[in-house]
């Protein structure tokens, strides 16, 4: 099963995203319209909306966040696509990664030639406790949440098991946070858009301005170990280990391989796709990696006919810093138990052999959960077409990968992309 390829090739010919952040004036549909406008402008040879035959929307829970269900046809109408088939896909934080896979399968099947796929989440209208409760519904609400788990808590528990098994230094988590903030500082769409030293300077300036004692942090590590600046959320995960609550939308246009040249001379091909599932955290084969990610990666590598050593860069699901470390192992970039040391040694930085989350990742770019999967694809599109600006990788990367996790690992979807010219 896993060696099967798409029955015909699928290419990305356009991509757009809204800014990620907190936008009190905008609802899901407004965010998606912003992303769609950018997508239309990104299509080199232009797009006639009438070409689009179906719309797949990833969204975790507009029902809870905005009291609005049945979102796909509404958004389709708002971007001028009625009456095409429009549907919403929910797999928690992997919703739009899964929507991408289903949209690609629909083209590969031969039924459609041109499909719009995207993701959206509007999370910041609710008070933080209600956001936490809404996110908790992506876990097992009969047996995990009643025990007292939260989402930071699941990953924190994996972190304690990981630290115990591999004698890992928790400073590795700070290294991931510092790197992703530094990358996100070069991304104009990022929610934070500031490196940690910039955040420190801002806090010092604010304290001085208000006549309060100016903190004396000498470097990022002193800042990140200050319990006032970086409080515990779920030990050992602190505030700067956690992705934020965000609003945002992202969308890409998929077409069959034979139609790609109608839209662009520089398409990005989806050459590998894989998806895995699993039960609740306690019942899994391991607490120190995510088995569904290993499964998804195996399927994607098999379909693409490549191994991890051929991937030039990856956008991975760093909802928490420990998640990025596990992801780099689950994807085969580092051996089991080696991810934390690689992060500490800078072997995942933008100028390394294995750049991880050049966009800033969910940590800095933001994590509007239903939009995050396609949000990762936007970075791949930019890097493979050489339009990522200040954060563009040198040496013309050819192969990119995305890794999108739902819940604490109940879903994982991995895609591999290739530039051919």
């Amino acid at each position: 099963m896993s060696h099967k390829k798409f029955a015909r090739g699928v290419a990305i010919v356009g991509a757009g995203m809204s800014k990620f952040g907190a936008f009190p004036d905008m609802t899901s549909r407004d965010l998606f319209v912003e992303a769609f406008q950018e997508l239309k402008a990104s299509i080199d040879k232009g797009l006639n909306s009438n070409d689009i035959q179906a719309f797949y929307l990833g969204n975790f829970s507009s029902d809870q966040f905005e009291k609005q269900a049945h979102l796909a046809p509404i958004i389709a109408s708002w971007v001028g696509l009625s009456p095409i088939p429009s549907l919403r896909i929910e797999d928690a934080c992997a919703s739009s990664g899964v929507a991408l896979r289903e949209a690609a399968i629909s083209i590969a099947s031969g039924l459609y030639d041109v499909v719009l796929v995207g993701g959206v989440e509007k999370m910041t209208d609710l008070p933080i406790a209600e956001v936490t409760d809404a996110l908790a519904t992506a876990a097992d609400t009969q047996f995990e949440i009643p025990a007292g788990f939260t989402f930071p808590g699941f990953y924190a528990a994996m972190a304690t098991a990981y630290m115990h098994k591999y004698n890992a230094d928790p400073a590795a988590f700070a290294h991931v946070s510092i790197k992703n903030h530094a990358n996100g500082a070069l991304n104009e769409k990022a929610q934070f858009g500031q490196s940690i030293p910039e955040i420190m300077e801002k806090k010092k300036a604010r304290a001085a301005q208000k006549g309060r004692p100016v903190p004396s942090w000498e470097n990022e590590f002193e800042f990140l170990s200050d319990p006032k600046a970086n409080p515990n959320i779920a030990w050992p995960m602190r505030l700067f280990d956690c992705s934020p609550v965000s609003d945002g939308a992202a969308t890409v246009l998929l077409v069959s391989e034979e139609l790609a040249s109608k839209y662009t001379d520089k398409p990005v091909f989806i050459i590998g796709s894989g998806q895995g599932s699993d039960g609740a955290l306690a019942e899994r084969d391991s607490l120190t990696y995510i088995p569904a990610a290993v499964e998804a990666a195996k399927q994607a590598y098999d379909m693409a006919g490549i191994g991890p050593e051929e991937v030039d860069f990856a956008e991975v699901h760093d909802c928490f810093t420990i998640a990025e470390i596990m992801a780099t192992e689950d994807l085969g970039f580092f051996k089991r138990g080696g991810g934390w040391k690689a992060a500490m040694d800078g072997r995942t930085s933008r100028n390394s052999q294995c750049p991880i989350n050049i966009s800033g990742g969910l940590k800095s770019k933001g994590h509007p959960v239903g939009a995050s999967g396609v949000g990762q694809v936007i970075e791949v599109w930019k890097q493979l077409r050489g339009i990522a600006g200040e954060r563009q990788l040198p040496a013309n990367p050819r192969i990119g990968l995305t890794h999108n996790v739902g819940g604490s690992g109940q879903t994982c979807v991995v895609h591999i992309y290739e530039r051919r010219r």
Partner: protein
Amino acid sequence: MTEFNMNSKSFYAALNEGKLIGSRCKKCGYQVSPQRLICPKCHSDQMTLIEFSGEGKLAAYTVIYVPPTEMQQAGYNNKNPYCVGVVELKEGPRVNAQILDLDLAQPAEIKIGIQLQMTSVVRESKGSSQKFLAFKPV
């Protein structure tokens, strides 16, 4: 063990009587908690209800400083955090539980692998008090 059925809610019915239940596969011997009808390993539907001893060890944990609404209502907050973990039962399966009676001032000092004994904790939930699974050090 005829008084509880395989439906997922009977886990809490059993807990109310101080019992930690699960199921064992008659075909492959796999054990799991909470109980379920279909074996996750060999996929047979020959699962039988069992009761676990309640002895186990700590496999993973965290100390929660930002609790969800229900735990806030139970009195927890960043000044009064709580520990939740994954416990590996003596019989093999792992379960989620609140871990009581630990010193939470130094979370790093909590040791994975410590021996635990099942207990329960009563919390207010949705307007009524309910018993939840908990463990404490032996």
